[in-house]
């Protein structure tokens, strides 16, 4: 099967520091893929590159488009690339580049089907839970100025559909009773779930979760694992996650990518990774001691 996400030769440099070096990996559709590695290995940097918040220094990131065409969507092009001399005699390319330079950015990555959550939760604190989810559906409702001001039938229909969709996700995440509370006054665990619900409201094909279990207690973590599995099974959403909780990662993921010092040192199924001597040496060695074995 064609991979949903293909990352090839991804490198990222900040000034003189190389954060990522020649990272290659793929995410199969319908899979749960986990990025693991010690602190500072560059996991979040990979996330930021994939979701378009950082512009990769070199390499390519492709997302399979909905029609399964050959090369898929070039995510880096959506961020706006520097103009080149050769564009001068290719007016179509030039206009495309200019367009993406002016209007490109991470929002376009989201619009082709990649949603994400953040390590440090980023909610709209002074908006209600429901409003948070409605903002996420900005591109699916009638955002025209006139139809909104006149409250046209089309506008109301779209708003209703958006509220219904948001309610469905709230129920899925057990947040329905909180719909009209301010997002900022929710307890921490609820905020994590709300952020996932909000990302899902953009109807992504690939959901990137940055340490979703951070700060949760073991019960909450268990519920979360269950939830992620349900997401995949019932809604066919592919999941890419960063996680430090090895128990959870080994339980739910189909495929692991291990990063160390910005390089991929191993990839494979959880069982293979647990055996991999390089991984054990670099990372799990200390973890096994702490967790009492995997």
């Amino acid at each position, binding site marked *: 099967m064609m991979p949903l996400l293909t990352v090839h030769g991804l490198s990222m440099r*900040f000034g003189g520091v190389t954060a990522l070096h020649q990272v290659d990996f793929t995410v199969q559709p319908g899979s749960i893929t986990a990025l693991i590695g010690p602190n500072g290995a560059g996991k979040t940097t990979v996330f*930021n590159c994939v979701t378009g*918040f*950082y512009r990769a220094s070199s390499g390519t990131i492709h997302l399979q488009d909905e029609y399964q065409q050959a090369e898929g969507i070039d995510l880096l092009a959506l961020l706006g690339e520097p103009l080149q001399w050769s564009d001068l005699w290719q007016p179509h390319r030039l206009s495309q580049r200019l367009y993406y330079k002016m209007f490109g950015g991470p929002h376009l990555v989201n619009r082709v089907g990649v949603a994400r959550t953040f390590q440090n939760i980023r909610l709209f604190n002074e908006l209600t839970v429901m409003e948070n989810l409605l903002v996420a559906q900005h591109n699916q409702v009638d955002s025209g100025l006139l139809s909104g001001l006149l409250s046209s039938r089309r506008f109301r229909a779209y708003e209703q559909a958006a509220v219904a969709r948001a309610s469905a996700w709230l129920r899925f995440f057990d947040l329905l009773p909180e719909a009209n509370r301010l997002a900022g006054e929710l307890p921490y665990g609820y905020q994590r779930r709300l952020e996932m619900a909000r990302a899902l409201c953009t109807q992504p094909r690939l959901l990137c979760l940055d340490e979703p279990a951070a700060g949760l207690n073991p019960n909450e973590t268990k519920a979360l694992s269950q939830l992620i599995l349900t997401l995949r099974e019932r809604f066919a959403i592919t999941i890419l996650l960063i996680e430090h909780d090895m128990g959870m990662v080994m339980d739910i993921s189909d495929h692991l990518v291990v990063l160390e010092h910005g390089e991929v040192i191993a990839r494979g199924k959880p069982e293979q990774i647990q055996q991999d001597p390089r991984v054990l040496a670099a990372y799990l060695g200390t973890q096994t001691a702490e967790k009492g074995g995997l």
Partner: protein
Amino acid sequence: MDIYIVGQQLVNGLVLGSTYGLIAVGYTMVYGIIGMINFAHGEIYMISAYLTAIFLALASYFGLQSVPVVLLLVLFATVFLTALYGWSVEQIAYRPLRHSNRLAPLISAIGISLILQNYIRISQGARNQGVPPVLDGVWRIPSSAIDQHFIQITYLQSLIVVTALASMALLTWIIHRTALGRACRATQQDRIMANLLGVDTDRIISVVFVMGAAMAAVAGMLVTLNYGSFDFYIGFLMGIKAFTAAVLGGIGSLPGAMLGGVVLGLAESFFAGFVNSDYKDVFAFSLLILFLIFRPSGFLGVPEVEKV
């Protein structure tokens, strides 16, 4: 083009630029340490102009004659009190807002700016004020020149450049060579970490405001002596100009502030001299906008990486 006219604009630009640089230091240091544009900094400069005039008048009231003694006394008094104003503004209007949202300190600063302007207007009157000429005299290069063929440098102009350079050198020394300066640099790099390591960051932030105000006071005194007249509204224009200098040099960078000041001073005086003097402020503001759009990190600043 007449070499002497070019030379004269060069001198004027340098003099203007060094005062911009001195005030820009206040913007750049505060921005570097708490990431905020201290909008009231221009008013601090304006207050120092009033203090200079008041202390000069006080000196003549007590019958002090010797020019160097008077200038030194006025300098110390002005710098001290202006710094006290800078410190108080920080205590009252910015410190309580350390953890509030992004807009709050800026709005508070605009409030302070209105307060200071009107405080001066009410207590000193709205009319133009002035100081008597001190330290008259000029150098002409070449000294034997006749007609218009010379470059003129007043004693005060040279005093401005020399004092500006000396104050910058002193500040650079403090920042790079003393324990206080090390604490400042540490706080600028990472406030939370510096605090964990035992640096009293609140005190350091106060110190930065005090140093910025002191530099503005030096500039205020020099400009007042040079131009002789001022009013309660001068802080606004000077404030934006100095901020422009800070942006040009790269906001957050100390040598950048001085470089930006000199570049802006030269650009402005050449524009005024050779293009159009009515539009020199428009030119400076346009420079500010263009730099913010196309090169927000200025000449010497480091581009910001957005933290996600």
